[in-house]
């Protein structure tokens, strides 16, 4: 049996909030449930049993070991809907969508929801490692005496908690530090980064103004729009900001042309064409194919966020496409410099020859087709929620256009990159 294509029926997200903003007291489970409920209400799925819900969070409390299933149980979906957690750093949302889409393509599922959520406000704080070891030892102890002895090892300074670091475990460097090194390598200028940032804000604001997000977003806790959005963003204003990553002359990355810490959640409804038709629901687009690449940034082989540059050519080759065969490019703006470095790599004959083994560079893309409704620089980037935001946005863009093809590219921590192709429903 030839695989069928999974349809994107629609999506929903809550507006993205800045860290310690309106969602400061919302837990991952709260936000994911809200995103699911908004999706359920949009498509009249209350009480419905879906094939599965796959979602995840990058920053997760240990109590959230079954985060997605718990969110489903708290949602309006039928409690008989199974769920599981996925985690692939910032690729989580898209990877979850790929998982569900693949199962639909194989006929294992008729419908499913893929999603993601993250909070940097309600982040897990771990107990001090030595306190943890002492408590674990006390827990393992077989006698009261041994337990007391273990507990007696606790010292006052063990009570200082450990706040999670936004850094790569193997390098101790923040993602921004890594991106700054890559920006230097590709000689991405401050001006180009700021211009991309301003464009992102202006395009997202315009999309809101024309009601594009009316059926992609459900307000949450009084927030109606992405809190990070600055419709009046300008090159002049951005030029005044001091760099926050990198050093000295080569430092180009500011708080504006990097995504801020954000809270939010998203969900996408995927289904077979038949299921959608049976439920009177639209098909916005189809999943065509997806690819995930990883690079060795630990041993200095490649930049941390450059994996999409490797994933895309493999995906193009498998599908007999060129980089120019797309009507929309959704390249997640982790940092403006990440987008620009990736584009520069694809334009570079050396990179394409030496690293990708191609005879000719992939070439440049029509920037007018890039992130046409803005992206993470404006919307914010609650890590695992970004994939769902992008899949739903691109699917709706394709549905509005009525034809065409879109490319999604998302870089992720750990030197990974998740990319996918969607096509408008025919």
């Amino acid at each position: 049996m030839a695989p069928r294509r999974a349809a994107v029926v629609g999506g929903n997200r809550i507006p993205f909030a800045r860290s310690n903003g309106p969602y400061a007291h919302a837990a991952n489970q709260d936000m994911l449930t809200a995103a699911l409920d908004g999706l359920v209400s949009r498509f009249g799925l209350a009480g419905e049993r879906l094939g599965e819900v796959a979602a995840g969070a990058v920053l997760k409390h240990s109590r959230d070991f079954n985060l997605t299933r718990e969110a489903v149980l708290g949602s309006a979906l039928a409690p008989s809907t199974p769920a599981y957690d996925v985690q692939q750093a910032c690729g989580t949302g898209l990877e979850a969508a790929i998982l569900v889409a693949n199962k639909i393509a194989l006929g294992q599922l008729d419908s499913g929801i893929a999603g993601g959520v993250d909070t940097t406000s309600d982040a897990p704080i771990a107990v001090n490692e030595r306190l943890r070891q002492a408590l674990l030892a006390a827990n393992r102890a077989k006698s009261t005496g041994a337990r007391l002895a273990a507990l007696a090892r606790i010292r006052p300074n063990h009570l200082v908690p450990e706040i999670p670091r936004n850094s790569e475990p193997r390098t101790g460097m923040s993602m921004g530090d890594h991106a700054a090194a890559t920006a230097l390598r590709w000689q991405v200028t401050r001006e180009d980064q700021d211009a991309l940032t301003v464009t992102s804000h202006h395009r997202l604001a315009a999309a809101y103004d024309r009601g594009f997000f009316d059926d992609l977003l459900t307000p949450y806790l009084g927030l109606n729009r992405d809190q990070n959005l600055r419709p009046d963003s300008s090159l002049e204003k951005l030029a005044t900001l001091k760099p926050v990553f990198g050093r000295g002359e080569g430092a180009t990355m500011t708080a504006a042309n990097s995504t801020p810490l954000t809270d939010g959640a998203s969900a996408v409804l995927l289904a077979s064409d038949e299921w959608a038709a049976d439920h009177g629901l639209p098909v916005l687009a189809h999943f065509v194919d997806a690819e995930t690449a990883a690079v060795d940034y630990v041993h200095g082989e490649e930049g941390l966020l450059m994996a999409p540059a490797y994933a895309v050519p493999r995906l193009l080759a498998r599908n007999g496409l060129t980089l120019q065969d797309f009507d929309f490019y959704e390249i997640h703006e982790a940092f403006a410099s990440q987008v620009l470095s990736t584009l520069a790599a694809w334009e570079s004959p050396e990179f394409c020859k030496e690293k990708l083994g191609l005879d000719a560079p992939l070439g440049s893309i029509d920037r007018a087709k890039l992130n046409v409704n803005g992206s993470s620089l404006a919307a914010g980037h609650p890590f695992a929620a970004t994939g769902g935001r992008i899949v739903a946005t691109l699917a709706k863009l394709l549905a509005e256009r009525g034809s065409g093809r879109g490319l999604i590219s998302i870089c992720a921590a750990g030197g990974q990159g998740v990319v996918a192709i969607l096509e408008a429903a025919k």
Partner: protein
Amino acid sequence: MQTQTVTEAPRLGKLYLQAVVTARLGGGGALPDTELVLPDQVVDPGHLAAYVRVCGGSRRDRLPATYPHLLAFPLQVRLLADRKFPLPLPGLVHLRNVCTQHRPIATDDPLTLRVHAERLVAHPKGAQVDLVATAEVSGERVWSGRSTYLARGSDAHGAHGATAPATVDGVAAGPAVELADDPAAAVWRIPADAGRRYAAVSGDVNPIHLNALAARVFGFPRAIAHGMWCKARALAAVEARLPDAFAVDVAFRKPVLLPSTVHHVVRRAADGWDFALLRPNGEGAHLVGTVRPPADEVLPAPR
């Protein structure tokens, strides 16, 4: 050389205390013609886990190449702390360390450790000596290590005026690699208690690692990180890409004052890895090292 079998690993704290009490500056005399043997040491899994947790890397069914050094270290100290040893133990500075893994060592291999001192030579700042250790499993040598120490202000009488084979800025030459211009592969934020934590698993309770006051006695502004901890952590960063047999050679150039932020640079070489710990401000290296195929004798023999 006479062999002296030790049945139990010596207690390091006691040895240090003894060494401080009996220390003689610039002692002199010849190296003891003694090989200490500690037979059939079985690795304590809990201790290995603690070591891995402190030094990075993953808990596996093989020993990290730096781990046997830990087992041999008490024997080294026992030699060094001996009243007749020509150099004083307090204030000894670790200049260089080579660990050679001849084959992977399983965590349950019983190891017989042998330690002797050799090559006492003059150094521009005093005298240096090598402590050589080997580990055997059922008579097969599976690991060897060579630690070069400097005793500032001491004379190498026993070496009859010989000088060290080569020097770089007054330090014994280590691997010849230059990585200052490479971007950092990782940034280490080393906390103030790093020395105390490594001391707790290694037993190396040399006071210069434990607190600033003690370190000042020996001329350091603050406590300094153990060289072997830096080495173990740097090696752990490439542990998944190491061959079965290799030598990891490290020269300790500038001490890592605690707390500290250092840049770890790593570069693939034709037949191994080059790495370094650099000061973030570009002012030199704390440590440079290489991973290479094992050689029978890593250092040239003393002249």
